[in-house]
């Protein structure tokens, strides 16, 4: 929260200032789309640890953060990344090896939990998951819940409808709000003050952004305010929610950014091979994350040709006929 006029800074500073060891964070995007990858790589490079991550189906970023050992606790709905990883590979390994604490929700439930945080209520109700193990199996122990004031006392609560059968409902599931310390999203356009315009699907980015104490926004284009205010119906987040605006073209790479570029199937296939094996994964990090000083250098390593290949077609917003096998 910040009403100032200029919040532009570089990604190193933004991460350093707002993401600390042990922070509770959330990241925008969905599977292989609009993940704030430049910010994620910077978190890994800054060696920030013990993060508590809230995710719905944030795919690639989740897997890389887990793989790099940044995450100690995870609340999640879906750890998959399309055919590139039907189950995210480092996520799968970390859970099977007991390396992280985790708790499962549904995508709607995570969206509602962010929404609850965004609108300032302690919980929101849904009728999803009644009768399932989402309600029965808790990932965080009662003891941990008692000790850690940043984890709610209960995973979920099933309540009888206090309005009798109003809405044809006998029961509802109450989901506790999430209010992360920091949320990071990558968007198409922002101005210096932090007015935000996304194109295409917004996923749960708006709810995540508004639920958070601090909000870092990385953007493809840093534009004049006039451009965004000339048609404010198209903007999704007003500036005062934003704490840092970082201009990073291709900031979602190797995931997609609608109307700018597609996901890079070559990178994601390569990632899959590296991720299968612990030693190989170290090599991946050494080469593509630690081995580059910033996102631009990663793009240089990947090479112009690949960047050219994924460029979005202006009519459809994605790379037509991209080889995605």
């Amino acid at each position, binding site marked *: 929260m910040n009403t100032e006029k200029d919040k532009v800074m570089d990604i190193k500073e933004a991460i350093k200032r707002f993401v600390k060891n042990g922070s509770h964070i959330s990241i925008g995007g969905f599977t292989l789309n609009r993940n704030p990858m430049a910010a994620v790589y910077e978190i890994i490079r800054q060696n920030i640890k013990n993060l508590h991550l809230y995710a719905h189906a944030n795919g690639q970023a989740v897997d890389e953060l887990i793989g790099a050992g940044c995450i100690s606790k995870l609340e999640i709905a879906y750890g998959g990344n399309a055919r590139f990883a039907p189950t995210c590979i480092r996520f799968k390994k970390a859970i099977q090896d007991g390396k992280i604490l985790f708790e499962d929700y*549904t995508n709607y439930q995570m969206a509602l939990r962010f929404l609850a945080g965004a609108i300032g209520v302690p919980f929101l109700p*849904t009728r999803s*998951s009644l009768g399932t193990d989402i309600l029965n199996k808790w990932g965080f122990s009662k003891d941990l819940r008692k000790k850690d004031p940043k984890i709610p006392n209960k995973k979920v609560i099933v309540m009888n409808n206090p309005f009798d059968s109003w809405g044809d409902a006998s029961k509802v599931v109450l989901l506790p709000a999430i209010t992360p310390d920091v949320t990071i999203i990558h968007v198409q356009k922002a101005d210096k003050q932090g007015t935000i315009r996304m194109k295409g699907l917004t996923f749960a980015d708006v709810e995540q952004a508004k639920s958070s104490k601090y909000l870092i926004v990385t953007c493809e284009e840093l534009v004049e305010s006039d451009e965004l205010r000339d048609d404010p119906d198209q903007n999704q987040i007003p500036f005062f929610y934003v704490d840092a605006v970082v201009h990073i073209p291709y900031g979602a790479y190797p995931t997609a950014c609608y109307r700018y570029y597609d996901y890079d199937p070559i990178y994601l296939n390569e990632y899959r091979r590296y991720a299968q094996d612990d030693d190989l994964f170290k090599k991946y990090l050494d080469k593509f994350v630690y081995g580059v000083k910033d996102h631009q250098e990663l793009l240089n390593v990947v090479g112009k040709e690949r960047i050219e290949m994924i460029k979005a077609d202006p009519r459809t917003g994605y790379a037509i006929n991209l080889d995605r096998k």
Partner: protein
Amino acid sequence: MAEYTLREIMTVVAAREIKDGDIVFCGTGISMIAAMAAKHINAPNSVIFFETGAIDSKLEELPLTVADPRVMYFTSMNGGLADSFATMQNKFISKHVIGILGAAQIDKFGNLNSTSIGDYLRPKARFPGSGGACDAASFVSRSIIFMQHEKRKFVQKVDYLTSPGWLDGPKGRKKAGLPGGGPSVVVTNMAIMRFDEKTKEMYLSGYYPGITPQKILDNMGFEVDISRAKEVKPPSYEELIVLREKCDPQRLILE
């Protein structure tokens, strides 16, 4: 008779289950092809929508995930997760919404596991988790489930009940307080399974040409009634043309 692959017959069989006017909650892969095919074959006024918020996308190319930029093109509206699940939970709309789901395990009441095998906290195998599957299975009026017919997948009891089927029987959903209808059909690589109207237990409704009911039973971890089973009508030439030329000309899914 036209030649066809297993994937093709599965897709066509699922497509036939979609009715005109249905609003189809869709994942990726074969379920998306089935939903696309239905619009060309039997349900011109059906609508495909994705949990990510894309409604009635113009799918010029096959998306690889529900967040693929390809789902965002030429929709009626691009929203977000909260919108799209709310659409399924909406009292008036939900009656017209159907879901297409898949899973790692299924039991005789159509309950699904897409979370993990073994102990939840330290599983033998971890899968992606619910995503929107549990939400859809909770809300929609009926659902179509895709499964591979294997003993370890058709189980007495799912290790983790991710998405509700009929729970423990005909009264299960009502007792639990769930709003939507339960699963209506399971489409596998061998057969079509349905759920008995009274008991809500799975039974064999149809087997693919060349597959015997016994072979199907051999590939399941529980017994089902096979007395009502008939051979499934294979895909017609017209249906196959739709699949091959309109839905997946690049053969990304149908191979």
